[in-house]
């Protein structure tokens, strides 16, 4: 990886964490509501995956702020969305869980666990049909690999040899339930083994994630069908801001935080890329400024007009107030 890209990834990781911390603060402060699923701890995974899968379509879940920003969405538009403002990427109607941006080939933001996976399969079919080669990547958690939508999808993608990268973010938990209590094994790639090439990567190592996703993307592009890549990660916060995170011991949290992907990337930049501590500080500052601006933008942005309640339900039909 060249220095420029390494710096860019590092910046987006720092930006991601800074963004998430600000979002948390403003959730506590009441500017943001609903379910807020933070990606803190997983920034290395989220950023590297987006950067690596640079072309092609991406489908993901409700834990997607960092991915959305790394994919190219303006943090202002994302923060404004969390604030429910008209300037938000989904005009305040989607919120944290529903960030969509087709201009960056980013299709949400799905709050139904596993629901986006069949959508990604269909999109991969479309891409193959159109002769487009970049392929599709679908990101989902370990918890999603127990649901019918996931299983049908690995079967279908394999049968149809679709250019689809199944990227599993295995943080070991679905809300408060440990994956090993609801699946017969710890690594979910095993489920995909009868169907496709599977790979595993340390999700707390951004560079490794980057390389693995690049490799997987080139595999799916060769026409031989889908690939399953599993990244072992750790989220530092509760499932959402509403979750007190009491089901994990202090020790478990300590071990988990000890692998911090941002720290590791920082060390790497300092030791292998010859980036100075000052340059690191500058990056951090730049990220902080960006988030501050995003918050200021979101805070001062206007609310959607009441009429928007009835907009964008249909492309062609009109929708009117009923009562």
């Amino acid at each position, binding site marked *: 990886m060249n220095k420029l890209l390494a710096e860019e990834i590092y910046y987006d990781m720092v930006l991601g964490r800074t963004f998430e911390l600000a979002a948390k603060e403003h959730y506590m402060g009441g500017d943001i509501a609903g379910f807020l699923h933070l990606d803190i701890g997983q920034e290395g995974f989220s950023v590297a995956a987006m950067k690596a899968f640079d072309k092609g*379509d991406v*489908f993901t879940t409700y834990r997607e702020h960092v991915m959305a920003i790394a994919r190219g969405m303006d943090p202002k538009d994302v923060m404004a969305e969390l604030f429910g403002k008209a300037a938000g*990427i*989904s*005009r305040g*109607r*989607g919120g944290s869980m*529903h960030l*969509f*941006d*087709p201009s960056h080939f980013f*299709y*949400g*933001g*799905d709050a*139904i666990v596993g*629901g986006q*996976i*069949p*959508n*990604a*399969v*269909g*999109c*991969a*079919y*479309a*891409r193959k*049909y*159109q002769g487009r080669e970049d392929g599709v990547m679908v990101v989902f958690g370990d918890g999603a690999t127990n649901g*019918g*939508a996931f299983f*049908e*999808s690995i*079967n*279908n993608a394999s*049968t149809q040899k679709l250019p689809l990268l199944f990227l599993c973010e295995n943080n070991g938990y679905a809300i408060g339930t440990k994956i090993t209590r609801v699946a017969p094994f710890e690594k979910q790639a095993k489920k995909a083994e009868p169907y496709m090439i599977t790979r595993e990567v340390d999700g707390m190592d951004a560079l490794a994630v980057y390389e693995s996703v690049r490799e997987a993307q080139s595999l799916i592009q060769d026409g031989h069908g889908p690939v399953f890549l599993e990244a072992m990660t750790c989220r530092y916060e509760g499932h959402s801001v509403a979750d007190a995170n009491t089901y994990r011991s202090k020790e478990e949290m300590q071990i988990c935080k000890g692998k911090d992907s941002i720290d590791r990337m920082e060390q790497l930049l300092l030791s292998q890329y010859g980036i100075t501590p000052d340059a690191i500080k500058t990056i951090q500052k730049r990220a902080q400024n960006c988030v501050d601006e995003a918050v200021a933008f979101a805070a001062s942005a206007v609310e959607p007009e009441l009429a928007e309640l009835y*907009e*964008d*339900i*249909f*492309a*062609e*039909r009109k*929708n009117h107030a009923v009562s």
Partner: protein
Amino acid sequence: MLYREALNKAIDKTMEMDETVVVLGEDVGLYGGSYRVTEGLVAKYGERRLIDTPIAELSIVGNAVGMAIGGLRPVAEIMTANFGLLAFDQIINHMAKYRYMSAGKITLPMVVRFPQGVSRQLAAQHSESYEQMLSAVPGLTVLAASDVNYAYHALQFAIMSDDPIIFIEHELLYNKKGDIDFETAIDPLKARVVKEGQDMTIVSYLKMLDDVMEAVPEIEKQLGKSCEVIDLCSLNPIDYETLETSLKKTGAIVVVEEDHKTGGFGSQIVSWAAEEMFYSLDAPPLRLAGEDVPIPYNRTLELASIPTPEKIAEKIMAWGNKNGL
């Protein structure tokens, strides 16, 4: 031409016109569709465009959503409405909502075809009607094809529309005969006055429309009154304007549907009439619908569970007599 042939023709025409139209579903390709609706199309367009899927309804609709996101115009077939329940998450949480949640950034030009209804002794897991549920979902357009001409025009409209559309067919209509009027355009979202009349408005759709039409001569003869019969055609949106015009004239409304009565689709029409047309009503509205029971296999019980021309005539006459119509 048969109803199923009209549907076939509609799909064929759009596929010929627009390369992005693809069909997916169980046995829709090589087999030609379990009700023969897609017969012959695979020979013309190949397996790339007539996609035989596994028995996985959640994926059929979920994949169609993704295809639409990717720029295709998928036409998904659910073999029988009851199996469509497996796809309700994709239909309601995804197909109906992506556009709104994305503030219009996602467009889903897609159709899900829903063959439904009481056919012939297929029993409880193969005989239901779900327009009640589907028409209550904001974001979905729900069309119901009662005849050959509408089937042909409305399905083409649905496929070429940029909105996600549920297209309901009744399994007993596939072999219904009729003519297509190729010259006259129709608005598939408008209700159709099938027969004009002065004294009561009978609203129906799908197979029940035929049963109503069969009952009408007897009703008119016995009551000495004339019936206006309306085919709703679109179940969401509902064309209240046409209903209103008719009701203002007749002052009485009957809604006939095949689905279970409690919570059936007709309750929306009757409750609208009660709320909005109260002062035009000369008699209590009448709802004729199926019984609140799972559909039994035995033919006598099966017929007892849904309206038939005889029961429709009988009940409307009793209602007319009782209310001085």
